[in-house]
């Protein structure tokens, strides 16, 4: 390098040239890095949910045919939603538990809008299996709610995790009562 500079002329001029070249190279390199970074984003973002996926159809559930003690499963966002019409005993059972005993402490009142109607996502918070407990013949686990057969998580009558590997309670989706006998999920 040095020899090349010398052959061009006096040293101070050459030195200035070298600095300018390095500066140029750095700037151009920085611009190129920004450019590459900016190019990567559209590719990554294209894999995020598209606009039609985000504008999900909401699901409406007619509650009138669900008798006390029964439950239905409806599909929302490609996942099952459990809607259970709880018996007074089940409500009682859920509310009698001291919060300190819970892994993910949440009072039952915070998980329902109307006492007897429990609406939760039917997706085990461990690794995403669908717990049993919707059909009368299903195993409901030791706490009378749901039991996940994949890895043995037990949920209570408020959908809260009580035993097993799952870390959190069954998620409550956003829903509204459009009338006394109908809810809209989403």
């Amino acid at each position, binding site marked *: 390098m040095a*020899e090349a500079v010398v052959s061009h002329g006096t040293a101070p001029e050459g030195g200035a040239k070298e600095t300018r070249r390095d500066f140029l190279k750095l700037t151009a390199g920085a611009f190129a890095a920004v450019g590459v970074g900016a190019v990567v984003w559209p*590719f990554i973002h*294209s894999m995020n949910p598209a606009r039609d996926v985000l504008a999900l159809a909401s699901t409406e559930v007619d509650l009138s045919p669900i008798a006390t003690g029964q439950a239905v499963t409806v599909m929302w966002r490609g996942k099952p939603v459990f809607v259970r019409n709880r018996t007074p005993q089940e409500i009682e059972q859920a509310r009698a538990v001291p919060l300190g005993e819970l892994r993910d402490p949440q009072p039952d009142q915070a998980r329902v809008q109307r006492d007897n109607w429990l609406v939760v996502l039917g997706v085990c918070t461990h690794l995403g299996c669908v717990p049993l407990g919707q059909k009368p013949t299903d195993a409901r686990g030791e706490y009378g709610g749901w039991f996940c057969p994949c890895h043995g998580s037990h949920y209570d009558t408020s959908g809260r995790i009580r035993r097993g590997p799952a870390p959190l309670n069954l998620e409550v989706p956003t829903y509204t009562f459009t009338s006394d006998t109908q809810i809209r999920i989403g």
Partner: protein
Amino acid sequence: MAGLHQSDFKNPVVRWIDTRLPVFTLLQKEYGTFPTPRNFNYLWNFGALAIVNLLIMIATGVFLSMNYTAHTAYAFDSVERIMRDVNYGWLLRYVHSNGASMFFIVVYIHIWRGLWYGSYKAPREILWMLGVVIFLLMMATAFMGYVLPWGQMSFWGATVITNLFSAFPLVGQHIVTWLWGGFSVDNPTLNRFFSLHYLLPFVIFGVVFLHIAALHITGSNNPLGIDPKGPQDTLPFHPYYTIKDSVGLIVYFIVFAVLVFFAPNYLGHPDNYIPANPLQTPEHIVPEWYFLPFYAILRAVPDKLGGVLLMFGSIAILFILPWLDTSGVRSMRFRPIARWFLLLWGLNFLLLMWAGGKPAEGIYVTIARLATVYYFLYFLVILPLLGRLERPLKLPESIAAPVLRGGGPVPAGAAAKPMEKA
């Protein structure tokens, strides 16, 4: 037992890898110090541009395929969903569709460079032939890609092009049925085209690797068409040509961006925004612009089989070009007669492109026929004869001599400098 590689790298991690798998040495040798003729002009950018273009096509294609549905009932709408609902989907799709056009622009210029400077001549015959293979694969890939949006031009282009094979006697119709997987272009056809459209770019990538491997055996040609005689005639590839290619790359990106952002449908055809309708052929069906010259040759022949053979022949002839050109001089710069014929051939190619986009009637057919005749005449008659009849201009002593012309005698230091850099 082979021994470990003796690595010259100082960085311990690089050195550790390099002694076991000498990729760094390889890169350094092939793209760092690789001796490259010092007199490239900007036409020598186009090989690098083509590689970048291929990578862009593969990247955008992979992401587009995540949202594309290869089914006749959903293909059109899935493409429009990409345009409307997928985040940056319109960008990916317009880059991909215009990228095909850019790819052909780049490759046509790359081929033209090869023709003008005689890059196909010994010892680069295999390098050239691999290039023709890439070109053929590109055409197949582009054709099948154009079918995927399942618009009117997609459908009728697929119908017409696959029907080319029906021209072959006896087996023709069977071949066509086999290509379709049915009795018309339909869902099985769309599915297999999607599969092959995804596969072929990787085949192209493989052949490009061979193309570059061959290039690095023979070394690059250069605008003078004479071989480098020593270190004074060459420069290390890096930084000289990495930076020169970068300049070309940015100009290429600008042209690309103008197309994608301001005229994304300029090179397309409005009819392809009409969903495919097997019951109605569009009034004028034309292939994409890059196929027009070959389409013109096809239509120039009044016989079905003859047209098909001549069209395939127009590309096949490139394979034997190294032996058709009998002149020992590579660069047209030193061939005072041949360069005019080649220039005429280039204009003739554009004329064919123009004629291919016109209706197949009247004066257009006549023009296409004359242009077709010259297309082949150049390769089959003019080039072989000129090699014997033409008297080339005097070739320079070396590459360094004309590059440093006007500066009087070459200073010893100047010629030695590139070596010091290396």
